């Protein structure tokens, strides 16, 4: 237990669907607490649902976990349980150390007070003593980079300054466990870099981190392990690239379901991607020497659609290696198939993703739809692998 930072055992949280029940059950629960009655929290009362249902994970000191999932999957609720805002209705959470959260920056800020005054208010809310804040004051102001506005009322701050100040204070609370939820959505690119660097620093010094985000790049770069949640349950637990792939499949499954029910949200949908070998058989594995034969099936709901088909090879994290566009063409209404043939795969052995999609033009200002499949490249002797780089080619050497 000594090295375990967070241990969540089969935790669950339920909520009421209707406002009437929120009030009713709220009063019932308070009355129950007055009379010392222990609520049977693991049963559902009328109009209640499980927002989080049986999620378990264990993190050691310094580990970094990402939680991803569609909206309403329970990610933020799990984080709130870790933060001690909600008590689990079933299961238990054990944590050791001081918990800090980058969830709502600027909590407790009063618009009439100056930045300086608000630093003390926010710091106190986050659990910092006055002495601690005094010591870190200059560092906080420096990080926030708000210049002379420190002594102006916060109501005069731009939204960027507001976030920078809030974040600067939160980042100085030096927790043992750090909980982060999507706040990095606000702020410019430079500040974003500052924040991620700072988080990196903290985690390398042994801070355990749990990150909830929709930004797959962030998840990929920051987390060692990822949990994929859907409708309150854990769908997958594993490496970031695996879970991200699974997430996209979830998305596609939802779309396919909608399409089957006739509720197509998109007018153009890629319905299947296949890679065939030289014999014409469908395969998931190719070698660098062979050509890459891709065929994509699509369904187009409307008339007079024009677009450019593209195929793209990426690393499992989504880093693009190669894109080829067909050029803008008319697309027929109904079912259709497009095939593309790349003369030689030329990739180093390993796992890749192959995307096929349609966009408005080669510039990809608007992507109508895109789907991905896994593609493995099996190395062969005539195309020697190199550990450096993604591509292989036959090279003629000449010494003179």
């Amino acid at each position, binding site marked *: 237990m000594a090295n375990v930072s967070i241990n969540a055992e089969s935790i669950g949280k339920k909520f009421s669907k209707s406002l009437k029940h929120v009030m009713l059950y709220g009063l019932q629960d308070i009355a129950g607490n007055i009379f010392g009655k222990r609520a049977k929290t*693991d049963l559902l009362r009328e109009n209640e649902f499980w927002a989080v249902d049986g999620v378990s994970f264990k993190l050691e000191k310094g580990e970094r976990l990402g939680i991803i999932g569609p909206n309403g999957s329970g990610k933020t609720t799990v984080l709130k349980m870790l933060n001690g805002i*909600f008590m*689990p209705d079933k299961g238990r*959470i*054990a944590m*050791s*150390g001081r918990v800090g959260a980058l969830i709502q920056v600027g909590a407790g800020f009063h618009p*009439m*007070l100056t930045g300086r005054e608000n630093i003390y208010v926010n710091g106190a809310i*986050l659990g910092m003593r006055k002495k601690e804040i005094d010591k870190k004051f200059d560092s906080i102001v420096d990080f926030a980079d708000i210049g002379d506005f420190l002594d102006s009322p916060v109501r005069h701050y731009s939204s960027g300054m507001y976030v920078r100040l809030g974040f600067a204070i939160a980042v100085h609370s030096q927790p043992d466990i750090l909980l982060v939820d999507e706040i990095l959505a606000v702020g410019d690119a430079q500040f974003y870099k500052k924040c991620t660097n700072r988080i990196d620093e903290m985690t390398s010094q042994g801070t355990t981190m749990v990150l909830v985000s929709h930004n797959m790049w962030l998840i990929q770069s920051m987390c060692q392990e990822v949990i994929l949640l859907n409708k309150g349950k854990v769908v997958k637990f594993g490496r970031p690239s695996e879970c991200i792939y699974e997430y996209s499949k979830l998305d596609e499954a939802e779309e396919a379901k909608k399409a089957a029910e006739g509720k197509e949200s998109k007018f153009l949908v890629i319905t299947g991607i296949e890679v065939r070998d030289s014999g014409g058989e469908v395969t998931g594995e190719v070698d660098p020497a062979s050509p890459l034969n891709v065929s994509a099936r699509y369904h187009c709901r409307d008339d007079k659609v024009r677009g450019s088909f593209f195929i793209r090879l990426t690393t499992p994290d989504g880093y693009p290696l190669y894109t080829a566009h067909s050029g803008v063409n008319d697309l027929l209404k109904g079912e259709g198939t497009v095939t593309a043939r790349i003369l030689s795969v030329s990739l180093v052995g390993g796992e890749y993703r192959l995307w096929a999609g349609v966009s408005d033009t080669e510039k990809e200002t608007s992507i109508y739809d895109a789907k991905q499949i896994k593609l493995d490249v099996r190395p062969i002797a005539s195309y020697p692998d190199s550990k450096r780089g993604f591509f292989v080619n036959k090279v003629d050497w000449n010494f003179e």
Partner: protein
Amino acid sequence: MEDILYEPNKYLKMGVAIWPRMFRELAGSRELIWRLFIRDWSARYKQTALGYIWTIVMPFIAIGTFMFLNRAGILNIGPTGMPYPLFALIGLAVWQLFATGINSGCNSIVTAGSMISKINFPLEALVFASTAQAVFEFLVKSALIIVFFFVFRFVPSWGIILFPLAVIPMLVLTLGLSLILSLINGVLRDTANIVTILTMFLMFLTPVLYPVSTDKSILFKLNPLAPLVTAPRDLIVHGRINDPVDFFISSVLSFLVFFICWRVFYIAKTKIPERV
């Protein structure tokens, strides 16, 4: 490194062990309470031109009105043992510690808004900080009372030294009720309105603006707030409490209410972020 454990019914399971924990947490949040108080206080007075002078204006108006009504014979208060404006001012000061206290306390959790559902911090601090505002106003009015002693050339008896002590039960009752009301108001928003009306109504049922008259004493015997208002005033006028037994009972009740409400609040507070 402290160990944290979250599970259903956590605080109920703790039983009596919860009390030392409650005290420790309260002691730990004293800085936060102070900060929240300062925040609300400075914000409040920054937005006005007259600042905290407004705190004094209201009682002036109330007293002026009653003096006028008394002189005009419309309201016959009778002998109070001291100049009437002073009598009313002392009564009002103590009453409003209670009334403003529970009214703002009742709203304290709801006005904090999204902060509650996003940050983990001791919620009691919000309630205590709002009561601190009422205490501040009480202190301002007390200072005003001292000024009026000179204006009306009234010499208080030695009992005035015990005046602050005699107000403590009222303060404790205010805290206790604020805690439970803020909890209920979080779920049922009507509560704030009910409290407003109730305090207005109760003020007339309590000897704040008029003295206790012996023939109607049944009504005052039944009102636990009555001794809490009259006792501090008696100390100033007579140097002793006229009904010490009643005052004692009310004080004990106040402390009891406070401890019960505080405990309920502590146990139930984990439900607040869900329901607000």
